[in-house]
């Protein structure tokens, strides 16, 4: 049959010609053509049957109605998205949304790998496969339908003979793949729903709709085969195996009745498809479009970096207490969330049964943005005050989002790392904390005490019996004073100076550097906090004051110079210096002690050849070293080079490492909830059977020590898990001369 014949005959009922059961969208966008072509050619050449093909609108009258509906469908989707975008635009524009794209290659890479390639979705095997099934099935079915339409309207016949049968096979199998995906999704929600994400009507509507489309597609196909293929060209129908089976199920139905049923289901299928697709503008199905966009929009700076409030003294508000205080990106992001629950599953606070679930933070803000945001938009349109009629609304911070949720966050970034659609929870949470602290001065007593100590004493360790130089008592002569001539400044930091256990690490680092003849110095007595605790606790102003003071000290002492490098043994100091101080005018280089020590071992300047007791060690990743700054291997490589040490991993390690519980200022807070995060983590470490846990963060060490106190309460001291800094173990193995074995 020629093209023109098909066209002119489509309005008539035909029993002899061919047709398709699956026209998820017969009105396709030809842009998918290239991929469709590849699919088509693949495999089909081996088929020897000639002449096989089908017809676009087999057995359908008035098909033009579909074409009439199409602009409406597109219009409805666009209307939904535009309507939402008005709420997004309540936020403040960011540089990005003004069109200043930094790191375009990185963004595009993310768009392709993370957006199109769903890289992160695939990390979870079950839901990865499930999502892949649904996604590929939809894409393929869309393409094959498009191809059929194109084939129909262009003067050349592509879909004939072997190519047509290969095409049928691909279409049929991907329909099946889609059904498998939907079944997996239903099972996921029905059989093993996690409390974190009990499914909602939205889930059932999307899944039910999709399932219905796939099933009706097969019914239509089966009926087409039953009525037009199976008796005429039975060997063609084997190329649509599922359709063939469906056709067999209809084998008892009379052809004329079957044709009627076919028409009915064809319309149900097509109108259903068009209705379902409008969900794109009104439900989480919008992630088809928004998730890739968010992958592109996500910041490219270090994930542990917080944005600075510039000109803080001139701000009208501090942090976020109203929807419109967020950036457009932050509000936009709320709509991208697909409620997959991965952020919450990885959140240390949630794992420990504490009152925080990052998914609910995003979802609750989304509901708020829907209700209140749309009212605000309406107010703007009507020329009213933005908050007109909203006086009685539950406040966003303290009402919709509870204070204790905000305080329970460790800023550990596990949620951000886990989110398949690239949502950034941490800045959103910290922004609300900022308003609690700076706007409302409402915070737990422990936080207040910490901030006051920072203000008055320049460190967060309230009640410490030590001074900044206590750690070097008795070894003053072994700690060189910073002169501005040395290569490295060793920044001891508050924890390294004021906390007993951390002082030991400080001394180990000094001892190792002396052993390796590193040119370093310490600014004695004059250091002050770099401001990280204040910043993470939401007191941006205090952070800026402390940071300005420290940078001034660095300027005066010649540290703030591109040629100088600051060594820190605290990952929090490291992150702040490396990622946040450049905003404050810092020029110096930064290195973490594990990076330096690895270098020294590689250069042969430290030789870990002394026998340390035989032991297995599990390494705990500090969030601010690992996830936030990508230093996973340096500490592990040091441990691997120590004789007699066997390294074993906890199930959650590296990018998926679980926070010790101290981050985000929680080092100084009372924890609320079922259990404590450090206990959870210690249990994980103990479960590996390791003799010791090693880490590279003074907070982690303290958290582990106190966790062991309760988790291993009944264990003999000698059998308890030992906790060491990487530097301490290396010191034992590489520092022979006890003179500076401090």
């Amino acid at each position: 049959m020629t093209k023109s014949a098909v066209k002119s005959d489509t309005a008539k009922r035909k029993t002899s010609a061919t047709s398709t059961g699956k026209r998820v969208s017969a009105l396709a966008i030809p842009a998918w053509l290239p991929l469709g072509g590849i699919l088509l050619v693949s495999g089909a050449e081996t088929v020897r049957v000639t002449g096989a093909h089908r017809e676009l609108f087999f057995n359908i009258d008035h098909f033009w109605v579909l074409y009439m509906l199409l602009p409406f469908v597109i219009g409805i989707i666009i209307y939904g998205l535009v309507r939402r975008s008005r709420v997004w635009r309540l936020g403040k524009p960011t540089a990005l949304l003004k069109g200043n794209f930094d790191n375009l290659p990185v963004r595009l890479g993310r768009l392709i790998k993370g957006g199109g390639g769903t890289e992160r979705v695939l990390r979870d095997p079950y839901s990865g496969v499930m999502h892949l099934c649904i996604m590929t099935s939809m894409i393929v079915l869309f393409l094959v339908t498009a191809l059929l339409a194109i084939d129909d309207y262009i003067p050349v016949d592509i879909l004939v003979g072997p190519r047509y049968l290969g095409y049928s096979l691909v279409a049929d199998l991907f329909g099946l793949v889609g059904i498998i995906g939907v079944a997996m999704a239903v099972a996921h929600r029905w059989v093993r729903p996690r409390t974190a994400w009990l499914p909602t009507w939205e889930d059932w509507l999307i899944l039910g709709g999709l399932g219905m489309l796939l099933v009706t597609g097969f019914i239509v196909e089966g009926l087409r085969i039953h009525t037009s293929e199976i008796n005429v060209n039975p060997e063609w129908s084997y190329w649509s195996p599922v359709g063939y089976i469906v056709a067999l199920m209809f084998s008892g139905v009379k052809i004329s009745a079957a044709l009627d049923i076919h028409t009915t289901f064809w319309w149900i299928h097509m109108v259903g498809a068009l209705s379902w697709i409008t969900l794109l503008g009104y439900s989480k199905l919008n992630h088809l479009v928004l998730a890739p966009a968010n992958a592109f929009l996500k910041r490219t700076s270090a994930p542990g970096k917080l944005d600075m409030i510039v000109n803080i003294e001139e701000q009208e508000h501090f942090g976020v207490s109203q929807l419109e205080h967020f950036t457009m990106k932050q509000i936009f992001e709320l709509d991208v969330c697909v409620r997959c629950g991965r952020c919450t599953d990885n959140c240390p606070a949630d794992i420990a049964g504490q009152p925080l679930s990052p998914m609910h933070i995003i979802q609750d803000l989304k509901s708020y943005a829907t209700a209140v945001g749309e009212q605000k938009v309406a107010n703007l349109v009507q020329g009213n005050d933005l908050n007109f009629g909203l006086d009685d609304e539950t406040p966003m911070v303290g009402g919709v989002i509870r204070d204790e949720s905000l305080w329970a966050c460790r800023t550990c970034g596990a949620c951000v790392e886990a989110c398949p659609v690239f949502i950034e929870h941490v800045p959103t949470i910290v922004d609300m904390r900022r308003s609690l602290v700076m706007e409302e001065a409402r915070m737990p007593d422990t936080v207040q005490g910490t901030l006051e100590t920072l203000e008055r004493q320049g460190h967060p360790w309230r009640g410490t019996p030590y001074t900044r130089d206590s750690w070097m008592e008795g070894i003053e002569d072994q700690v060189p004073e910073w002169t501005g001539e040395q290569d490295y400044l060793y920044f001891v930091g508050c924890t390294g100076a004021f906390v007993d256990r951390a002082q030991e690490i400080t001394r180990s680092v000094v001892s190792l550097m002396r052993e390796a003849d590193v040119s370093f110095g310490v600014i004695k007595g004059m250091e002050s906090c770099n401001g990280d605790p204040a910043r993470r606790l939401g007191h941006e102003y205090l952070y800026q004051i402390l940071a300005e003071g420290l940078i001034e000290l660095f300027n005066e002492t010649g540290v703030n110079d591109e040629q100088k490098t600051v060594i820190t043994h605290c990952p929090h100091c490291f992150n702040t210096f490396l990622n946040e101080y450049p905003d404050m005018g810092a020029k110096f280089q930064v290195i973490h002690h594990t990076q330096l020590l690895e270098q020294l071992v590689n250069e042969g300047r430290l030789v870990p050849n002394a026998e340390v007791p035989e032991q297995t060690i599990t390494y705990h990743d500090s969030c601010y070293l690992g996830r936030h700054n990508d230093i996973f291997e340096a500490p592990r490589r040091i441990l691997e080079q120590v004789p007699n040490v066997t390294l074993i991993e906890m199930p959650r390690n590296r990018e998926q490492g679980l926070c010790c519980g101290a981050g985000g200022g929680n080092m100084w807070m009372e924890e609320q909830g079922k259990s404590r995060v450090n206990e959870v983590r210690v249990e994980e470490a103990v479960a590996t059977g390791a003799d010791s846990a090693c880490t590279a963060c003074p907070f982690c060490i303290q958290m582990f020590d106190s966790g062991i106190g309760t988790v291993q309460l009944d264990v003999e001291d000698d059998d308890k898990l030992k906790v060491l800094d990487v530097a301490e173990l290396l010191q034992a193995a590489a520092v022979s001369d006890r003179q500076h074995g401090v």
Partner: protein
Amino acid sequence: MDVIVCVKQIPDPETPAAAFKVDEAAMQVLPAQGISPVISPFDAQAVEAALRIKDASGDGTVNIISLGPDSARDAIKHSLAMGADEGYHLKDEAFEGGDAWTTALALSRAIQHLGVPDVLIFGRQAADWDQGTVGSIVAELLDLPSATVLRAVELNGESITVSRVVADGFENIDLPTPCVLTISNEFGDPRYPQLRQIMQAARKQVTELTAADLGLDASDVGAAGSRVQMHALFQPTSDVEVEIIEGDTPEEKAAGLVNALREAKIL
């Protein structure tokens, strides 16, 4: 209801013992490196009490007076950031080296200069020297009723009901206004200032008053007017000796302990 709070700036009581040093010859406490002086914690609570009275009464002012060196301004600014209205700084070389009496004298003059308010509030004592007398001396000098070491203050029409902390419990009494109150730590935590208020307080002018402004002669105040004389200032040292009482069984150890206590004439 108008309130005046008198506050004092002191070395941070959280200064670690290792950083606390005195100059025995000059009989002075040396400022600890890197640790800024703070408003005396009891005084911060006094400011809190004043702010609550103002809030409860619905109007009035809370003004702050502090006597001290330049840095005392920070204690006043802190009170302003908490929400107080105006600050007055009694700053004069003549005030230096004074005692509780000269301080109370200068403060009472300043209060008269500003006009005696409905309520005058002090911390129960300054947390550095811990004498706890200035409030009572001021009450005496101004001839006002006073109640000290309070854990609660409540407005009761024109009078004030307070609850004192006493050795064997609490004592609740009513006072007429104007009166003098001193606040104890049981009162509760002072509020943490909001950033906006800190910024406003930073911009606010603090009025400085000298001895002459208060009609005081230099010989009445400071070291010259002092009634207390310091003879020595030193850090006491304490020796701790530990004796571990050995024994194979708990009974033996207990017997050993009893003997040791007898020998030491404790039992």
